[in-house]
């Protein structure tokens, strides 16, 4: 048996170490996770589907020598297909039937010893940087229940911050790993495009904009999980090779002296002063760690990236809906959130011309940005232009297709950059802002140099803000 405080005090690798040493069993860890979920999930609404029986079967079958043996894990309710777990994409339009197939990433997670026992909350199709689907209700921020846990991986972030699991699966198309990590004071790495498989059921994954990985409390957990899931995925349109040395070994070393650019983006977006303060404080921490820190200008307006990305992603959502309608043999309009329906109607008619123009325009922006990384190894920006939003303030129910675009140009201004370029980008939970709410700083790395970001993050990790205090029910 393991007490909650013992469970909470360890990260995924720490828990796996207990299982590997025979001190606890995978079943006991799962019981601790389920007990914590029972205590806090009614408040935070992080998990929308829990299957203790599935988890118990998986725990009983764990190979105790696996690198993450017996660590309880939750998958986001978006895109990733896994044995026995319904996938609804945060939507009432999708069935609750558990599939009998799994995606490559899910299979690798299982082989790494993780015990998957449920799904975390996601907005419908992951459309918003807050997680407030009509189908399940809002994921609340464990630092303040009146605030959003962020999105679209808000359920994952809430589950980790609230102590249900030490790390959780997450996806990121325009910031969906990094935004909730910022809101909940957690580490969240969007890896380089092509490093983590999205197949075999997805091919191009929104022209390479969509990524999968995790949100975690510790940096080394993110590295270990990246070791578990990265690698060749035959038939995938994108492929990035991982280094010859495991990330978990690399993350134990400090990075070389880095040239770090600091970009506040004040000319693009009205920034909450606390975000500027957090960025400046992070820059100083990097200097103290021995890196050189200089202000840097990014020679374009990322709002343009957001517009291009919307032109690519939203027609894709319309296509997913059409596919579902074909599968069912009837329309699903009545099952969709009004905003989703309006967006699908507007963007479903996007011409091939505008789609290809958006792709071409992105190429120009991406090449411009690549030049900045000749001068810098890492660029720090705010992750979000403000702290966690209040629930309801940017909820789908409060938006129409026009205000949705406005909202995304604001909230996605910093995170969409690396989605477009495919570069690795991570949220570093370095600052506790007014009201006791977390504000993260985003670190952008060079394409394929995920290890550098992990090393920098690990170097600054001692300054991470720690955990929220969520009273048990």
């Amino acid at each position, binding site marked *: 048996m393991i007490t909650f405080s013992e469970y909470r005090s360890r990260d995924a690798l720490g828990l796996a170490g207990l299982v590997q040493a025979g001190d606890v069993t995978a079943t006991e860890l799962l019981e601790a996770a389920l007990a914590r979920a029972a205590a806090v999930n009614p408040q935070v609404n992080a998990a929308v589907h829990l299957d203790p029986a599935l988890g118990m079967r998986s725990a009983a079958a764990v190979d105790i020598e696996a690198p993450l043996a017996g660590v309880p894990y939750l998958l986001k309710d978006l895109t990733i297909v896994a044995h026995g777990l319904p996938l609804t994409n945060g939507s009432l339009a999708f069935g609750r039937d558990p599939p009998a197939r799994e995606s490559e990433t899910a299979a690798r997670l299982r082989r790494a010893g993780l015990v998957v026992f449920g799904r975390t909350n996601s907005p419908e199709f992951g459309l918003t940087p807050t997680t407030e689907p009509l189908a399940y209700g809002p994921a609340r921020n464990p630092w303040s229940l009146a605030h959003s846990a962020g999105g679209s991986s808000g359920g994952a972030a809430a589950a980790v911050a609230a102590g249900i699991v030490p790390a959780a699966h997450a996806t990121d198309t325009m910031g969906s790993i990094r935004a909730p990590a910022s809101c909940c004071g957690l580490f969240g790495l969007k890896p380089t495009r092509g490093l983590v498989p999205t197949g075999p059921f997805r091919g191009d994954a929104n022209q390479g904009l969509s990524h999968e990985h995790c949100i975690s409390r510790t940096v080394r957990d993110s590295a270990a999980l990246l070791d578990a899931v990265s690698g060749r995925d035959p038939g995938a349109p994108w492929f990035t090779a991982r280094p010859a040395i495991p990330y978990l070994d690399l993350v134990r070393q400090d990075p070389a002296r880095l040239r770090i650019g600091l970009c506040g983006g004040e000319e693009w977006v009205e920034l909450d002063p606390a975000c500027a*303060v957090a960025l400046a404080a992070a820059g100083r*921490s990097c200097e103290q760690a021995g890196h050189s820190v200089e202000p840097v200008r990014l020679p374009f307006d990322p709002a343009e990236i957001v517009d291009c990305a919307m032109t690519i992603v939203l027609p894709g959502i319309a296509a997913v809906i059409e596919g579902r309608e074909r599968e069912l043999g009837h329309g699903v309009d009545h099952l969709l959130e009004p905003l989703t329906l309006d967006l699908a109607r507007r963007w479903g008619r996007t011409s091939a011309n505008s789609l290809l123009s958006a792709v071409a325009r992105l190429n120009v922006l991406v090449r411009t940005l690549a030049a900045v990384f000749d001068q810098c190894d890492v660029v720090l920006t705010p992750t979000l232009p403000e702290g966690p939003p209040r629930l309801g303030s940017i909820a789908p129910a409060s938006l129409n297709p026009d205000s949705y675009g406005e909202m995304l140009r604001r909230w996605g201004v910093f995170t969409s950059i690396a989605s477009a370029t495919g570069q690795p980008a991570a949220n570093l939970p370095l600052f506790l*802002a007014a009201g006791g709410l977390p504000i993260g700083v985003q670190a952008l790395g060079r394409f394929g140099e995920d290890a550098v970001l992990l090393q920098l993050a690990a170097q600054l990790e001692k300054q991470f803000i720690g955990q929220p205090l969520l009273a048990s029910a």
Partner: protein
Amino acid sequence: MNAHPALGDGSLLLTHLHSGVLNVRAVVAAALDGLATKGRTLDAVVAVREAAAADAESADSRLGSGGGRPLEGLPVGVKDVFDIAGMPTSAGCAEWSESLAGENAAVVQRLSDAGCIVVAKLATSAFAFAEPVGPGAKPARNPWDQGRYAGGTSGGSAAAVAADLLPLALATDSAGSARIPAAHCGVTGFKPSRALLPSDGVLESTPSLDSVGLIARTAEHIRFVLGSIGAITRAEPMGRVRVGVLRARFEPCCSQAAATSLSEALEVLRASGADLVDVEFEAMAEAGAIGTTIAAHEFARAHARLRPPASSYGPLLAAFLDRGRSLPTRAYAQALSDRVRYAHRMSQAASGCDVLVCPTVPCVAPDLQRFEAPAHGGPVAWLDVAAANTLPFNLADWPAVSVPIRSADGGLPFGLQIAAPTGLDARVLALAEQFQAVTGYHAKRPPAR
């Protein structure tokens, strides 16, 4: 049990009370309950004031009839050195107490005239002398780690606010006694200029250094409370603030966590528009000798009048009083004139700066066990450390506030002190408020147990 959530934020509480969302009776009842239960387990409460329930009823009827005063219904706790009519003032010493006080201390009366309701008397080390453990006084426990000290000497006040048992507590501060426990407990502690608040009805310890202090969650609330009793008006606009950094005072904070925390706090000030300049004040450490001489003499004089039984003194206080009694008067006179020179030198060092900043205390809250072993650097060594950065501002009579910054060693609270020349109380609070408008360390609560 959990404290009433509204008790954790005085300004929000007043908004709720005055808009009728909450009634004073329920809030005061919750405060009394929390103080009597959790407050006792923290050794933070000496006595609860049952009469507060009746005051709450009057407050509700005033609010109901639209006659609410600015602080109507705000529960306040007072360190047990303030007289409260009808209650004994025991000064942290169970064996000794003055007879029941006839009237409230002047500052308490002013708060109460503005609508505050006194709900409890809070723990202090005996006679507000910084000896954590004495025959009659248990040290207040730190809500962040009950095996640690809440800090002295107003430990009960800081612990009660940190545990959300009260939105506001009165403290005293003669060498740091409001700021030190505030820093250790992760709350905001303010020592005003001495002239700001009257000390009538407050137990005398070292009258030329004593100051009434306030402890609350935020500087904003302290400013609002002081504004409501007419003690301060809004700060004059400062434009670009020039912050003098007492760099030498940062070095004794040797842990990496403390250094990180402090450098981030400075970066926050810089990024919020302040200019930072390093200030050298080499004579700063002389405060210890001057302050100790003044305090020893004045304590001895005060206790010659109070005459508590000798058994109520701990060994440190007994020795301190002996020292005070044997001190030649001319040494005391010399210390008084040294003090004037000291204050002058501080002003010179700070010339060109709007405020000075340094860590409030160079370390996190000490383990209580440490006080049980005086032979191994117990209380004495601790005292020298704790007041090193706070006492100078008592000597110079500068207003100073401690604000929570990023936690340091072991995730324990850590504080930054902001001080400005005498009379600029509103400036100090305004800068603290500005700091807390972008940082949230003051809002972090101790781990639930």
